[in-house]
């Protein structure tokens, strides 16, 4: 569904090709129809128009917002600020409508909401398109800033949204035939179809498939990217208007949880993360499928503890179903295994052949004059350019802390706290950073931390002796979680984001089942001492962290494994052709990431003295942020662990500074976002010419 179909209906495309192009969306549509059938079947009575109207309004907010996200994903980007825009529009509307005024102008308020969304989109687009900064970190900063602004507009739920908005958006477009939410989605889709047929639509897919080629054939990549974020912002704005109409009031937190389900909808709808393939039509079905899962689980009376497991499984199945074909990774792997087996039976495997040295005879190298190694600052110029900004910002933050709060630079306690608090993210940064270096992303970090911490606390239960076997158990568990992630990505061909997102949900279910909702047990004295005690004036975890940093630098910079990681990140195909065993390396990378998360689970349990459900939730976005702030390219291949460490120290020092003040939370969130944005400003890409 790219260049050819964009020429319009006149171009004759064979049916098979049309089917192949729209597979994702078609399968989503079929699954949607089946889910609707299931809802109808298990429901109390047959689905009436009233039920359909209910269902359509339930999924509309996330469908509309996810359509915007789809455009960004199609262009190869990522927008983390989407949920925050929905909240902002909601509170902006709820705080500015006058409850005493007789009626409200629906068109005007809708335009206001869309306008707010587009303004935010323009902000994102400016940094991403013109300043060539990485979408994930720009939108992450925007997210923090917007959350702060939202709390400044309205610091608690309340406000008033005119019922006129509600009766318009939740009413009927055609009485007893078409509910308004469906009509709104239809209008957005029609606008998309028009856009897709235009030159802009063609350019959008081109930029997503390959920005360099797009630029070479004369597409203005900068303008296209900018417009994509503006249009996507408009969609989030409309979603914010819709949720305001639906709830009739404002709530500063209402949009934030929409973010992850939005990505799930995009993926279930058949759009490929990374760009170039898919479209908003499938996303709409994806959003409604995910919403109906709620109804189906309820009708089947699935225990609450299993619901995240069920959702994770559905996510994987939906993606697998969308990709089962002769060309899919799984099919290719199976065929390869079959032919390898046949070769083995025929005795023609390379390993079974007689070993003869068939190497070409090349004359030994003639001694030439010794090559002088370039000076250090030249050799590491690239690394320094990307790693230094984080450290420079760190120095600035420490100086500000000294001036504002006093007692920082000369206070050993300050540095000790900084290192202890940094240790969690420093460990995570190695795992997440290595995954990102290969061009992936590990979203299963939160509940790997949570599950490992809970199981460790449960097994240890205050005994140092138990720690001796609990610790290895938990670490092996971490490795197996990583193996499952890696195997799913490598052998089933599921995209890393989907696979690890699903794993995260499944692990959450396991943690709930294991703990029955309330984790028992607590850390042993030795583990607690390790994280909170004193050894010659410093906490014992500090020397451990220094050793960890040294090992991490060596693993990534001085081992074959490290070189393979960079090789894969720079180009999977090239790496494969150079003889790197990509599958094995990728699995090892995800095992490393989960191992790091398991270690953090252990450390957090020691630090807090106990484990709690959700204790890893606060570490997902920071683990990505520190890697990127430290100069790593989110698409892989470039970055240094010392840079990531700089990112860790910078963000931790910033949080320590903010916690020491009595600034309101909203202001802190805004400052945090601005500092992250400023820190990565220096990292922007050089113009490609």
């Amino acid at each position: 569904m790219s260049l050819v179909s964009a020429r319009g209906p006149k171009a004759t495309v064979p049916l098979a090709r049309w089917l192949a192009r729209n597979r994702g969306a078609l399968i989503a549509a079929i699954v949607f129809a089946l889910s609707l059938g299931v809802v109808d079947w298990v429901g109390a009575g047959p689905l009436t128009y009233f039920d359909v109207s209910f269902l359509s309004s339930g999924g509309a907010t996330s469908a509309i917002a996810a359509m915007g996200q789809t455009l960004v994903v199609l262009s190869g980007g990522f927008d983390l600020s989407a949920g925050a825009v929905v909240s902002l529009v909601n509170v902006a509307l709820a705080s500015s409508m006058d409850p005493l005024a007789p009626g409200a102008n629906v068109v005007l308020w809708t335009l206001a909401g869309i306008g707010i969304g587009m303004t935010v989109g323009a902000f994102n687009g400016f940094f991403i398109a013109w300043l060539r900064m990485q979408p994930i970190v720009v939108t992450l900063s925007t997210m923090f800033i917007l959350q702060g602004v939202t709390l400044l507009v309205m610091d608690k739920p309340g406000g008033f949204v005119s019922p006129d908005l509600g009766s318009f958006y939740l009413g009927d477009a055609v009485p007893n035939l078409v509910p308004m939410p469906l009509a709104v989605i239809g209008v957005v889709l029609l606008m998309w179809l028009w856009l897709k047929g235009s030159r802009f639509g063609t350019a959008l897919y081109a930029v997503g498939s390959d920005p360099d080629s797009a630029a070479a054939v004369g597409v203005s990549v900068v303008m296209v990217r900018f417009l994509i974020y503006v249009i996507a912002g408009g969609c989030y704005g409309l979603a914010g208007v819709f949720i305001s109409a639906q709830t009739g009031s404002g709530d500063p937190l209402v949009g934030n949880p929409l973010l992850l389900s939005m990505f799930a909808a995009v993926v279930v709808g058949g759009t490929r993360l990374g760009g170039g393939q898919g479209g908003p039509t499938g996303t709409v079905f994806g959003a409604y499928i995910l919403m109906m899962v709620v109804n189906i689980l309820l009708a089947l009376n699935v225990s609450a503890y299993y619901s995240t497991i069920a959702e994770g499984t559905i996510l994987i199945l939906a993606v697998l179903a969308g990709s089962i074909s002769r060309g899919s990774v799984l099919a290719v792997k199976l065929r390869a295994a079959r032919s390898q087996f046949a070769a083995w039976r025929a005795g023609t495997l390379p390993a079974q052949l007689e070993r003869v040295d068939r190497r070409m005879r090349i004359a030994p190298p003639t001694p030439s004059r010794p090559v002088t190694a370039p000076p250090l600052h030249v050799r590491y110029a690239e690394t320094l350019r990307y790693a230094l900004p984080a450290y420079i910002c760190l120095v600035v933050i420490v100086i500000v802390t000294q001036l504002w709060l006093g007692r920082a630079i000369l206070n050993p306690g300050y540095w000790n706290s900084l290192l202890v608090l940094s240790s969690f993210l420093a460990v995570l940064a190695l795992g997440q950073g290595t995954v990102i270096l290969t061009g992936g992303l590990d979203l299963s970090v939160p509940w790997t931390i949570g599950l490992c911490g809970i199981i460790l606390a449960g097994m240890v239960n205050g005994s140092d002796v138990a720690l001796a076997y609990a610790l290895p158990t938990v670490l092996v568990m971490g490795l197996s979680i990583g193996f499952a992630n890696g195997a799913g990505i490598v052998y089933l061909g599921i995209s890393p984001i989907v696979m690890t997102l699903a794993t995260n949900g499944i692990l959450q279910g396991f943690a709930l089942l294991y703990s029955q909702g309330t984790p028992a047990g607590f850390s042993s004295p030795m583990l607690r001492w390790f994280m909170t005690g004193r050894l010659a004036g410093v906490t014992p975890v500090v020397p451990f962290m220094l050793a960890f940093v040294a090992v991490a630098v060596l693993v990534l910079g001085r081992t074959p494994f490290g070189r393979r990681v960079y090789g894969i990140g720079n180009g999977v195909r090239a790496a494969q052709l150079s003889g790197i065993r990509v599958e094995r390396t990728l699995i090892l990378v995800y095992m490393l990431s989960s191992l790091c998360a398991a270690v953090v689970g252990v450390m957090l349990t020691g630090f807090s003295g106990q484990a709690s459900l959700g204790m890893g939730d606060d570490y997902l976005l920071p683990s990505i942020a520190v890697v990127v702030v430290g100069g790593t390219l989110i698409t892989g291949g470039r970055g240094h662990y010392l840079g990531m460490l700089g990112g860790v120290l910078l963000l931790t020092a910033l949080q320590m500074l903010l916690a020491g003040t009595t600034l309101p939370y909203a202001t802190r969130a805004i400052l945090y976002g601005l500092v992250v944005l400023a820190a990565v400003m220096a990292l922007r890409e050089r113009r490609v010419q």
Partner: protein
Amino acid sequence: MGIVSIARRIALMAGLVASAACAGSAAEAADKYKIYLSMSFIGNDWQAEAANMVKAMAAHKSMADKVDLQVQVAGPNAQRQIQQINAMVQAGAKAIVIFPISPTALNQVVKNACDKGVKVFAYDAEITEPCAYNIHIDQEEAGRVTAEWLVKKLDGKGNIVILTGVPGTSVDDQRTKAAKAVFAKYPNIKIVGEAVGMWSQAVARTELSKILATRSWDDVDGLWLQVGCFTANAMQLEAGKKPNELKPCAGEGANGGRIQMLPESTKVEGASPPYAPLGAPRISYASPPYSGALALKLAVQALEGKDVPKLTILPLPVVTSETVKLCEEGTWEEMKAGCNAFNPALVSNPGWFASIFSEQTPEIGLNAALVGQPEN
């Protein structure tokens, strides 16, 4: 290639449908009120405990033949809870007991449910839609009473550190504003550090570490923490403070904190520091986790046609170092006699909420909160 995958998809869904049909027929329970519980996240102690108590209430012999209770989780997502409540109404609920994620976002859907004759009961947090029944404590009172206690303990002067809850929620807003209004009346009370505690002991540890990186415990005279006194006391011990030097702390009703409030000499089964008696100067309060169970009980009464008030304000469960008392077994009878802290041998999780006693719920005691077993 499309056909193969479509066929597989259909086979898969067929299996799901078959299992659905079985479950549907089994769930038909005659003559019972079909009541749904819509929880928020299950990822914290309070929520799990509240859900256990609701289940115990439904399993009590006075209720078991009247109630068919089904539990669903919405997570932190208000949009999803809206969808869930709609689905519950469609599935034929007689009453819905809700932990509302947002006090306002559910109004439309709750009104819809009421219009269809469904009784909607919100526990702990409120729903502002007038047709809903609300059961909760007065959060402003909680903020005011604890702040006044701290001011009195400090004789009206000193440096204090405060940790708030989840920003953007009404509960946090009401507690924090009420407390700050009290502090504002005393010019010698100075707030020297303020952070977001997210109602979590783990977050409290991180945030307090950040605040104390540029300060020492000697610069702090008192603490007002929505959740975190247990952790704050543990951190003071780690920093080399003696139990009799602990700073006064106004905060949560977790069992770990209650045990710390007992005089140092108390013999307690299963104690190990910091989950041990320290004689800590404390005031301990909480949103009581029995509110969901009480909501279910009132919902059944309402369905039976009894008159139930729209708003039930629960008494604020306040325990100070003077009134703390250890329970031996934790039966309802024993708690009625005034005990309010539980042996670590019984409750191994110090973050577990100890305010489980209510005059109005003799059906549920310690076992209800721990494992969902009602009293006899």
